[in-house]
């Protein structure tokens, strides 16, 4: 009898492994030498990282369903962080420094760094620290955060074309990783990584393509993530072999579908996240703990 041998792809390249955080609860992402979930073809040493988002400021316009789980802690970032870890089992957190927005409260870098330190002290899981995307302000804020939280191996972002130099320098000096963000463009992603790698170790870079929600441009994000992964593995492009982050909670919960009902909102976020994992994302930032639970359940099967 002739046995059927399914054809298998073998890739001779692999995605770099990035380490987030320090100590016992540090988390590794990336490291795979095959496409997502293709464990029959290669090795996927680390499950995708799933982070819950917290904020330095009580959210003003979140859908009630997504605020609900945090209502008792949303005014206190450290308490919010603790609840995410202890009650909702989050293994990574993303702290958004919303207060530093130059068009909003415009809080000082020092203030932002103190809050970050307080949050970092209250939990032992890896922490992603996110600015507002205002290039100049972020470079001051994230540099200050890097210094005040020296040695904690935070993941700082977003690092953009216009401010990568300052943030990368501080991250390097004080021992942190960074998220290089170029919006929906593989060529620009590569460009930024080349520029960063002149002075920054590639194994401490995570790629962010920016991401959109289901029904609101998800397919563009999917294609970009998918193509970056293929450039990395098939073309062995060393400047694309970084783990990929997808950050879409905000976009999901802004949709009218998510605002309509709790169940729909949670599913919207979970399905969006799962889709990006299938595309090749290695790290997700989520809003709703139930979406986190659903995704974790689906990928552990």
């Amino acid at each position: 009898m002739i046995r059927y041998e399914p054809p298998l792809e073998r890739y001779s390249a692999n995605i770099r492994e990035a380490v987030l955080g320090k100590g016992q609860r540090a988390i590794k992402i990336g490291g795979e030498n095959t496409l997502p979930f293709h464990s029959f073809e290669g090795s996927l040493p680390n499950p995708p990282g799933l982070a819950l988002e917290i904020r330095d400021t009580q959210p003003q316009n979140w859908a009630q369903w997504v605020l609900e789980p945090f209502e008792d802690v949303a005014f206190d970032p450290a308490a919010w962080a603790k609840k995410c870890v202890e009650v909702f089992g989050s293994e990574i957190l993303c702290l958004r420094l919303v207060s530093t927005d130059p068009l909003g409260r415009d809080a000082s870098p020092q203030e932002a760094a103190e809050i970050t330190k307080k949050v970092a002290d209250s939990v032992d899981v890896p922490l992603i620290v996110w600015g507002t995307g205002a290039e100049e302000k972020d470079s001051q804020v994230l540099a200050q955060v890097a210094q005040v939280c020296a040695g904690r191996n935070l993941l700082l972002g977003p690092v953009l074309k216009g401010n990568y130099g300052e943030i990368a320098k501080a991250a390097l000096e004080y021992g942190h990783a960074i998220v290089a963000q170029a919006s929906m463009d593989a060529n620009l992603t590569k460009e930024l990584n080349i520029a960063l790698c002149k002075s920054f170790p590639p194994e401490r870079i995570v790629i962010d393509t920016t991401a959109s929600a289901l029904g609101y441009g998800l397919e563009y994000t999917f294609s970009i993530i998918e193509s970056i992964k293929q450039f990395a593995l098939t073309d062995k492009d060393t400047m694309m072999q970084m783990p990929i982050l997808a950050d879409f909670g905000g976009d999901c919960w802004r949709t009218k579908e998510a605002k309509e009902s709790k169940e729909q909102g949670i599913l919207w976020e979970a399905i969006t996240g799962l889709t990006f994992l299938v595309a090749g994302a290695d790290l997700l930032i989520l809003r709703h703990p139930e979406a986190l639970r659903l995704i974790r359940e689906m990928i552990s099967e």
Partner: protein
Amino acid sequence: MILIGEDLNVMSKEISRAIKERNPEPIRHCVEGQTQNGMDYLDLNVGPVAKEPGETMEWLVKTVQEFTDLPLCLDTTNPLAMEAGLQVCEKKALINSASGATESKETMLPLAPKYSAGVVLSVINDAGLPADAEERASSILDSLAFANEQGIPNEDIWIDPVLLPVGVDQRQVAAYLEFIQMIPDLAPGAKSVCGLSNLSYGAPKELRGLLNHTFLVMIGRYGQHSAIVSGFDKELTRINGGELPEIVNLIYRAMDEDDMDIPSLTQKELEYVKTTQVLMGKTLYSHSWLEV
């Protein structure tokens, strides 16, 4: 390859002003410079010419012909300007351009047999730019049939597969390379032409020449007939004139993915190899493609 100099262009402020003021001096400088640099044709890009289209093109063609004996490639979307120019061309002219889009083919193509001119025919059609080589083939076959019915022989048709910037869509560059190899079978006797500089649009200024030169060699190998190029680019005319055979040979080897002793290459040679790999679609383009 036949080179068509592109520098007489209303996008240049100096040329635009000269045309407006009917001042022949800046035109003379531009025409003579490109002629001396070895161009075979000169492109006269006057844009859509909203004001006095006929009179403007007639003046420009007559003025240019005072300074050069080269044949002209009339580049406008305005059929009135096109016809006025064709009426005064002393040599067989080239109409730049018609496409497969209904309005374009119906207004521009009839001018070719009427004035015994050649015509640039692009693969664009009513649906826009075809996505890949096959769609280009199907689009150009339709347009060719239409052009032949108008009495234009394939020999007078200069097919433009449309070259997009490598920084915009690298797959379109690969589609271009695939498509030009199909032209002899699709349209026996027809010529091919492209806007070469468009390839490097958006790339760092100091590196545009490298992209353009490398691609010129690559498409030349695949049988490209002509290209609209920067008329003052001296290295380009040297490469096209066969003065740099070692560079051409190196690009061929990179196209064939020959094993090369990379450390033995000079900096300049390595740049050509890396650029060929990017243009073949083997390496993802970024503005810093030479730095990795």
